[in-house]
């Protein structure tokens, strides 16, 4: 199935009849919309001369100061606003970093699986992505060291490690404290640059944020941050924190791309951080996501057929589900669409065609009851697919006879007409 077919299947996902466990859309309606609305109205009516005007390519200085306050929550206490570049979402930050560092053919190390939006950027830059194994504690340092050794032996240039250490998209796991130390030590040992992409770090359910990789090393780590999950993805405000020499190149690159990030949304974020109880709002978000995570995990446990396994995130948006042996999440998708449930097939989260047996489930957007209904539908889809595989997997085509010629006037061979019931056949 090609990407255009996937898009076709996804065209029904926006319909209310379908439970979408596919999109990673933050629950923005949990924001105090009236307060945000009047705040943005004031920014235009009272400060239009600034908020509707071009701004600095590096981003509004006031916002960059507040970004440093936000990063301090994850242990980054030495960042200077001069090292911050405001970007159009952290996605643009990732694109800038990739443009600055990557030449065609360069090697990028990334987790297996990895964020699909990053893989798209890396592919556009013609980089070669090597995936590194993860487990419930995130990226495995030994796998990183092995890959570094292998690349060095092969004379390849590893330009950087791209990692999402907190509540990984799509895997849902978090890099443990000891592994953070080990990975930063490996970066020193092998002269490795790390791109730390951290949009979900403040969305933990059970514990305070773990200190960022950047908090442990300010020379080898470029940090990408975002307000998409803590405030609003529609404002498209993210940032890059990078050493000054790199920052200079990033500013030149962003000026070439967008001249400057949008002034109005930067002012909106700065004003929001200045005047609204944003830490409390993050708590509201995490409580909401925790409830949805619980609904997801409880119904998965109750309903999934044996052989299905999944990660148990303690923050963020995603569960990474592994199907019973032999099933292919992408090939199963038409059945799921017919059953009115949607997910993202795992194959998109790999640069090398792995991941057919995986899918990403997002619990951030649907209400708990809808999540339970979606998981119920998904379980039926998987069961139906298991039955199908039970029928066809054991077929040994090696024992087939050769085709024998038939008379051209052979009577038609007709199966049962009208036996195909359309609609939900899961």
């Amino acid at each position, binding site marked *: 199935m*090609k990407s*255009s*077919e996937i*898009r*076709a*299947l996804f*065209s*029904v996902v926006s*319909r209310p*009849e*379908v439970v979408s466990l596919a999109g990673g859309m933050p629950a923005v309606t949990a924001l105090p919309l009236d307060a945000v609305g009047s705040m943005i109205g004031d920014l235009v009516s009272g400060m239009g001369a600034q908020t509707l005007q071009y701004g600095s390519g590096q981003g509004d200085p006031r916002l960059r100061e507040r970004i440093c306050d936000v990063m301090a929550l994850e242990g980054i206490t030495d960042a200077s606003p001069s090292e911050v570049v405001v970007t159009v979402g952290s996605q643009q930050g990732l694109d800038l970093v990739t443009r600055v560092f990557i030449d065609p053919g360069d090697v990028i190390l990334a987790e297996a699986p990895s964020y699909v939006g990053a893989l798209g950027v890396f592919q556009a830059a013609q980089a070669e992505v090597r995936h590194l194994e993860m487990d419930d504690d995130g990226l495995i340092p030994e796998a990183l060291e092995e890959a570094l050794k292998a690349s060095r032996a092969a004379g390849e240039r590893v330009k950087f490690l791209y990692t999402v250490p907190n509540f990984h998209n799509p895997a849902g796991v978090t890099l443990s404290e000891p592994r953070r130390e080990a990975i930063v030590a490996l970066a020193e040992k092998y002269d490795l640059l790390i791109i730390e992409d951290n949009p979900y770090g403040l969305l933990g359910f059970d514990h305070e944020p773990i200190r960022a990789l950047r908090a442990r090393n300010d020379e080898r780590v470029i940090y990408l941050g975002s307000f998409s999950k803590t405030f609003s993805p529609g404002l498209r405000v993210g940032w890059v924190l990078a050493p000054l020499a790199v920052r200079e190149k990033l500013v030149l690159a962003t000026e070439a791309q967008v001249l400057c990030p949008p002034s109005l949304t930067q002012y909106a974020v700065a004003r929001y951080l200045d005047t609204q109880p944003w830490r409390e709002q993050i708590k509201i978000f995490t409580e909401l996501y925790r409830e949805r995570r619980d609904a997801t995990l409880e119904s998965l446990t109750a309903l999934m057929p044996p052989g299905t396994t999944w990660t148990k995130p303690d923050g963020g948006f995603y569960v990474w589900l592994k199907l019973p042996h032999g099933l292919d999440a992408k*090939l*199963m*998708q*038409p*059945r799921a*669409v*017919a059953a*009115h449930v949607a997910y993202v097939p795992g194959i998109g989260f790999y640069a090398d065609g792995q991941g057919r047996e995986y899918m990403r489930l997002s619990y951030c957007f649907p209400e708990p009851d809808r999540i339970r209904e979606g998981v119920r539908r998904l379980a039926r889809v998987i069961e139906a*697919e298991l*039955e*199908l*595989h*039970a*029928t*066809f*997997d*054991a*077929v*040994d*085509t090696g*024992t*087939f*006879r*050769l*085709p*024998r*010629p*038939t008379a051209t006037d*052979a009577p*038609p*061979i*007709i*199966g*049962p*007409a*009208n*036996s*195909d*019931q*359309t*609609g939900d*056949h899961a």
Partner: protein
Amino acid sequence: MNDSAGAAAAAPAAATDTGARAEHPLRALVLAGGLTFEREVSLSSGGQVMEALHRSRVDAELLDADSELLPGLAAHPADAVFIALHGATGEDGALRAVLDLAGVPYVGSPAAACRLAWDKPAAKSVVRGAGVTTPDWVALPHSTFRELGAGAVLDLIVARLGLPLMVKPASGGSALGAQKISRVEGLPAAMVSAFAYGDTVLVERFVEGVELALSVVDLGQGPEALPAVEIAPESGVFDYTSRYTPGLTEYHTPARVSGAVAARAAEVALAAHRALGLADLSRTDAIVSADGDVHFLEVNVSPGLTETSMFPMALEAAGYELGDVLVRLLARRAAAGSDR
């Protein structure tokens, strides 16, 4: 083509009622979207239809086939409905049966004929009965393979039909779930893929040849075969991507076939249209084998009307304008009312 027919028909009230009601412009409802895999294609078809109708100054509204549809129809009655839905509901006759119940006139084939055409094996059997060649086939539900043993059944299929084979869902369009199988090793996986789209799979002998799209339109003088559109996908396979990505497939209208083959293709399209009881418009997909025979593959009661679709190409080649044809079809149904 006869322009006066379209102009006169654009005011249906005047044609049937000279006194009680004031003359009003044709009011059409276009249905597009739906909850099938072909939603995206349908929305694209619906968009083209809306544009064409607006160019023809028809008062047209676009609605999805959801719970808003029947209340919407009741609140704002349309003179006639155009169904640009692809896939189930729109093409399997179900929605048309509901429109019949509601007494709303619609363009296209009646519900029962759609049900027959939607079921590809049933349609092949009827069309073969009308003297048209169609590749040998077998259509079986999953339960048959499960109960009799998939290996034994597939072995029989290969022994009887040979290779290569086409494996496809027994219903549904846009080539979704369809695969050509040249080596027997790929057959079980192709079955699994096709069964993801529906409970019955059609396996037919693959016929090598030139692929043709044969459109039929009936503007009141009986079904008329339009020039055949020849399909030459760059990849060699006319799959979903080749269908809807501009530039990936070359189309030749009229098809680069002999006069005799073109004539036979027109006969095949008309025979299928008539044998299945279709009305107003249809598109038959066919293959011309090396010996010049035209093989019926399947028929579409709601042909795609997107920018890369074959039905509009055929209309254009025949000198028709899409908007004008739509207006004439709608006006005729509006004038006839719900009585089919």
